[in-house]
Structures are given as C-alpha cells and as structure tokens.
C-alpha cells in the first residue's frame, strides 16, 4: 500500500498507473462491451467516417474500428506478459547463478549475452517465427529467451554486488548449498529489481511484438490486433486515417502507461536507476 501511495505521489506515476488501469479494464471487459462483431465484414459499410453507429468509423472491409481497437490489444498483451514472465524467471535465475558460481558458466552466459548484442535479434525472432511457426508458445519462448538475456545482465550485476557482502559469506559459512543461498539470501534482495525490470521489458516486448504482427509474423488474422490493424490501414491512410491512428494511439498509450508505471515503481522502491538503465 505504501508503495502504491509512493507511485501515486509522482505525477508521472499517477498518470501512468491511471492509464494502465484504464487499458487493463478495457481489455478485460472488451468482449462484453464491444458494440459490433469485430470480424463482420460489410461491403455496404466500407470506408465510413465516424458516426453514431461506428464511433471510429469502419475500415476497408467495412469492420467496426472501435470494436477492433478494444479487442486488438488482448492477444499482444497476454503473449508479451507471458514472455516477460519467462524472461524474468530464466534470466533472473541464470544471472544469479552465473554471478554466484563464477568460472565457466559465468563466462558462457556473458559470451552469449555479448553475441546476442551483435545479432539483430528481431531478425532472429523473425527467422524462428518463419521456420518454426508463429504460434503463441513459440513466440513466448523466443521473446522470453531474447529478453531474458537482458534480465540476466541486470540480475548478474546486482548479484555480483550481493555475493561480496558478508551476509552471503555467513550463509556459505553455515555450509548452505548454492540453491539455498540464492533463494534465501540473494533473491529477497533482487525481487524489486526483477519486478521493475520485468515491467520495463513488458513494454518493450509489446512494441516489438506489434512490429512482428505488422510484418505478419505475430498475431494471425482474423484475430484483431493493433499491429495488424496498422499494417492493413496504412494503405488507406489518406482515405480513412482513423483506422490507422486509433490502434497507433492505443498501442503507444499502453506502452507509455507501462513504462511510466514501471519507472515510478522503481523510484518508489528506491532502486538504483543506473542498474536498470544498464540494460538498454
């Protein structure tokens, strides 16, 4: 509760959290409140401007833009949230263990992180999506893996600070095995960092996941999706700008909301900004 109050005390935090809750509520309630079937096409209702019946008009296939915008974030948000969870768990564990263990496992992880910094990993994700398929589990795994490398970097840096502290030495001196030291002594000190890092990654993943959808490698039609909508509507930008602008505004405001909330959360928890910035 005190943390929430500390977030709301910051103007950017209050705006971010408010916007985020609005988005989440809309996503949750969308199936119940959408005015039209988002998939229903109508040759009679193509390229319509905003009206009482279609608040945001219709697109080139005559589908209701408002309904599609309300529903269009669900797939992306859920996939990326799952991927962020995967990233935090595997990256956090790998970074912690590597820093604690040192030696060759640490070297391997570090070189892997360096290597992936050199690879344009969007290309990597596209390749995997193209060859293995773009089902949600595959996308979650591959996004989670790529972002997990970033989390591992953060977790490793934070753990390196912690393993030098005497309370970790004290646990080692009791003869406790690695897993128990990591779980009891290190993780409680890493929890806040991982939480904020995961939230930040969620916002970045949303952006890139939408880019994948835009390129046709993310969400498949007919599921409504912001990235797909932008891709479809870009051909008719001069005729029906609302069909592109609405999903653009929805996507960017959602990303900004997560980002502002995460940053305010970090500040509320008193985290070292430098440590979080190190990732990107």
């Amino acid at each position, binding site marked *: 509760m005190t943390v929430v109050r500390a977030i709301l005390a910051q103007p950017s935090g209050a705006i971010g959290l408010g916007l985020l809750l609005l988005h989440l509520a809309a996503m949750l309630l969308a199936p119940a409140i959408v005015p039209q079937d988002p998939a229903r096409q109508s040759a009679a209702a193509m390229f319509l401007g905003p009206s009482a019946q279609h608040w945001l008009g219709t697109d080139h296939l005559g589908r209701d833009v408002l309904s599609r915008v309300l529903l269009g974030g669900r797939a992306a948000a859920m996939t990326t949230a799952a991927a962020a969870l995967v990233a935090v768990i595997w990256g956090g564990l790998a970074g912690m263990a590597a820093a604690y263990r040192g030696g060759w496992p640490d070297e391997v992880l570090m070189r892997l992180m360096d290597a992936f910094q050199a690879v344009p990993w969007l290309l990597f994700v596209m390749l995997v999506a193209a060859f293995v398929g773009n089902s949600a589990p595959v996308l979650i795994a591959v996004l989670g893996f790529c972002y997990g490398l970033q989390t591992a970097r953060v977790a490793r840096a934070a753990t390196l600070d912690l393993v030098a502290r*005497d*309370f970790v*030495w004290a646990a*080692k001196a009791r*003869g*406790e095995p690695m897993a128990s030291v990591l779980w009891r002594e290190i993780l409680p*000190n890493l929890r806040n960092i991982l939480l904020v890092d995961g939230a930040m990654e969620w916002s970045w993943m949303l952006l890139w996941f939408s880019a994948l959808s835009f390129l046709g490698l993310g969400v498949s039609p007919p599921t409504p999706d912001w990235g797909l909508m932008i891709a479809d509507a870009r051909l008719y930008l001069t005729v029906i700008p609302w069909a592109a602008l609405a999903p653009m505004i929805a996507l960017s405001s959602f990303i900004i909301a997560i980002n502002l909330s995460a940053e305010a959360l970090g500040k509320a928890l008193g985290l070292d900004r430098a440590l979080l910035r190190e990732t990107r």
Partner: protein
Amino acid sequence: MTGLVAVEDLWVTLDRPGGGAILGAIGLTLDAGQTLGIVGESGCGKSTLLAALMGDPGRGLVARGRVRLGGTEVLAAPAETLRRLRGGVVALVPQNAAVTLTPSMTVGGHLEEQLALKTDLGRRARADRAAELVAAVGLQNPAAILARYPHQLSGGQQQRIAIALALAGGPSVLLLDEPTTALDVTTKGAILDLLAGIGARERLTMIYVSHDIGVIRRMSDRVGVMYAGELVEDGPARAVLETPAHPYTRGLLASIPRLDDPFLPRAMPGRPPALAEPRPGCAFAPRCPSADALCHEVRPQARPAGAQKVACHRPLAGAVNPRPPRPAAFLPVAPRPEAPLLQLDGVEIAWHQTGLADRLRGRRPPPTVSGIDLALAPGEALGLIGESGSGKSTILRAIAGLWPLRAGRMAFDGRPLAPAILARDAAARRHIQMIFQNPEDSLNPRHSLREILARPLAWFHGLTGAARETEVRRLIEAVRLPQSHLDRRPADLSGGERQRVAIARALAARPKLLLCDEITSALDVSVQAAILELLADLRRETGVALLFVSHDLAVVRHLADRLVILCAGRVCESGPTGQVLAHPSHDHTAALLRSAGGWAAGAATPA
C-alpha cells in the same frame, strides 16, 4: 572575547520553521598556537562544528551565533570574504585524502591550483613553493612526488599531500577531521609527529577532531568533549582526561580499553539521543548515573568546575574512579596442548587467487600469509593481532572454510579439517562459527531478526515451530536485546544492536569455536565496551573458545588468554597475553604496543 578563534553561542539548526538543533550553544576561544582536541562518539556533531567554523554548516542547515576567525566574522561574511578566508585563514584536512584528491590530476597540479587560487605568487614562485610544501610534509624527493598521480601514492603519502594542500594558502587555523583514522598504526604515528611539528613551527592554531582519545591526548593542549551537539566539557587536556567533571566524559573514558588496566572496559548504558530532537534538560540525563529531577528539566549552562568548564548540574570532582573490580574473562581452563580444539600447521594462503593469465605465464601471486602454526585449546581465547593487510582476516576466512589453502593442514577436534566448507561434515560446520567485522554487511537487510536467528536453528538443529520460536527468544535475550526487536529489520537497529544479533546468530549453532573478525572496529567505544563485556560473559556461560582478530592490542588484552602477533604474513611473536605485553620480544610488537588504541596513563603526556 578575544583570541584567534572565537565562537560564541553558536547554534546550528535544521533550515525550516521550528527546526531542531544539531549544535547547541557552543562557545570556545583559542589563542594562536593552541591545539584543541574535540572528542565524542559518532553523530555528536563534531564534523558539523568544523563545517560551521568554515562558514557553511551544510545542506539544509543554518548557523546562528558568532564565529570569529582572526578578526573576521564568519557567519555574516559575504561570499567573497568567505572565499578568501577558506584556505587563506582557515583550512581543513579531511579524513580520507584519497577521495578528496582528483585522480586525473598530479600532485603538482593540485598544489599549483591551490597556490594560484590562494596566493598571488607567479608561475615560477608557485612551482618552488609547491616543492617546498611537499618537502615540509616530510616527503623525500619532491620533484618526483609532484609528478605523481594520487593513486601512485600510499595512504600515508596521500594524507601528507592533503596536509600540504591545506597549508598552501598559509592559513593560521587548521581544522583536522579525523586525519589519521583511515591509516595504519605506524603511519598514523608519523602523521601525528608531522602535524605536531608543523603546528609548533608555524604557530598554527589547530582544532583536532577524533574519536581516538589516544590521539587527542597526544596532540592537544585543550580538550573539548561533545555530546548530542553540545560541548559538555572543555578545559586543559590533562584536567579533562584525568579529572573529568562531566559524567559523560567519565563514562566515555571508562569505556575505552586500556593496556595498563587488567579490567574490562566499562560500558555506558543507553545510547545518544537523535540530534535535532527538542528536549528539555540535559541531553545526557537519561544515561547519567547521577542525574536528578533538575537535570531532566533544566538545560545546564557551561560554568567553571576545577580547571575546566562543564555544562552539568552535578559535576564530579577528583580523579577518574578506579574501575569496578570486574575481572577479565580468563577461564580456569588449563590449556591442554596435547588435545587442541583447532590446529593449523604450516598454513599458507593467498588472497589473490591464481587466475588464468597467471597460470599461462607460469607464475603465482605471492601468498598473503605463510608458515602459520596455531593451536587453540578448548575454551581458550586467542587474540590474533596484526595491522591491516597482515593477513589476519584471511586466516579466519580459511578456518571458516571460505578461502582455499595453498599449503598446510588444519585439524579440528582431533580430526582433519577440510579447507572447503562444503567438504566438511555437519559437526565441523556447526562447531565453527564466524562473526564478521561490519554488522551492517553481515545481516541480510531483507530479513527480520526472527528470520535471521531462525535460519541457523533450522539448519543446524532441525528446529521448527514453537521449539524454534522458544530458542529464538532465548538467543535474543542471551545477547541482552528485548524480544520486541524480533520483528524488526537490521536497518531499524543501531550498530551495536546489530552486532549483538550477529553474535546471537553465531551462538545459535552452539559452536565450540567462535571466530571474531574485528567485531568491534566498526563500533563506537562505549558500544565496543558493551560488546566486549557481552563476549566475556558468553564465554563464561557457554565455555566457547574464541579466536579474536584485531589490530588493536588494547581491545584484545582483556579477552585473550594468549596472543599471536602477525607481521608481513608470518607469526612474529606468540605467548600468554601478560607475557607478550610485558616483554615483547619482537620490534613489531613493541611498535604495536606504543601505538595501541585507547591510551596508557602516564605515557605520551603532552609536554
């Protein structure tokens, strides 16, 4: 009010309406060439006083009252006057020179800059003056020193450069903020000699702030004692240190371990009040043995008592009371060398581990310690003494199973002791427990005290539920902390309380051997005394053996049955405590004895 330094009714308060006082009613006068030593525990306002004397008490603070330095009113002075005053009339030697020197600037650059700012010498004259200053602070080959960068100097050399920088503007008042605290004992002695010499030669007025009474005694003509932001006692050094009138001064002096005193130092109950908290009456009253109703209600004014001025309603007279006959912790255990609890044979340890690059080049970093033989009888207390870097903590870590041996053998309880903790059996793990130097670092900030104490109970004894809770409560009581503390986190405790928790955690295992790594060096003296007392009691109660590492002979003297002195990574002397102290056979031991913390009565009395 005359004198070179004249302070009258100086108050420093928080800069907001009704802000509490950090410093209260400070008054002092110093003539040219006098040295005032200021003692007090951490957080009593010593550093704030120095800052206020420089005209800037610090962020968020305001100073009221009068501070005159050589005829200039400091607190009312415009910025330009202050700028000329600082460095020109008054200069500060900081505690840690390493952080005040710019790493990318040579020593010559530092001095050059300071001289350009504070004097009107020409370029040539500045270079000459810089060399003179370097020579004046006792450094050989000034030309070479001037060309060096700070990291190319030793800690002692850096501190000398800091002194040279302070002297560059030709000040008449030198403020010294614990200038030797970060230094080794031998270096410390040299720096003190230098300061005393320069002070006498240049007729400098010095205000020397330290928590080290030995240093203060050696350097000062006058001593001021600060408590909770007030100058509670002020007078000639001898009078204040030998016939202290304020109960706080007495308590402080009694809590300092002394080499010439066979009794344990005596702890003061309670802890200092938080600064800036408004309070009626005397700040020391809650801890004072002779306080009465008046003390709790009326703030005492400074007034003469004997040779000194004292802010106390009930000043004491006469020499320091003899300490109560509290015997040191010697146990009636006859050492049985045939069955030692712990034995080290020819142990060699390297702090720097051999890296891949070293291995490829076929070389190894030199060992930190080598040829270490030690034996510790059950229930015995052994003091392991050495300067920083002598390898004493490394030895402890190796015994605790946290650092690999390069050569040699260890045995515990009659059986070989594996170097790696994970290779040891359950009994060896349980019976050797370690207490670390800094309790701020050795307690997990995310755990409550209950969690901290419950962990070893679960780990070593498999205790759960109510049985564990009972034991946790017993442990916290055993280290004289209230049970209500169990739900707190380490950050909510004072340094001394944290160290008690760390001791309780080690005791939870019911060990046969406690390894103590400088466990009082991060604490204030009055707290240190209480921890030493606790350790002595626990030893009597549990019969645990102690291996106590310290750089300070006076601290160990009361606890240890035997001493082992380390120098340069080897044992240079060992024997029963009394014998080593009375007849040191090695030069290094003698040097340590001379510079031992605390103070020896009669020794080094200022002329």
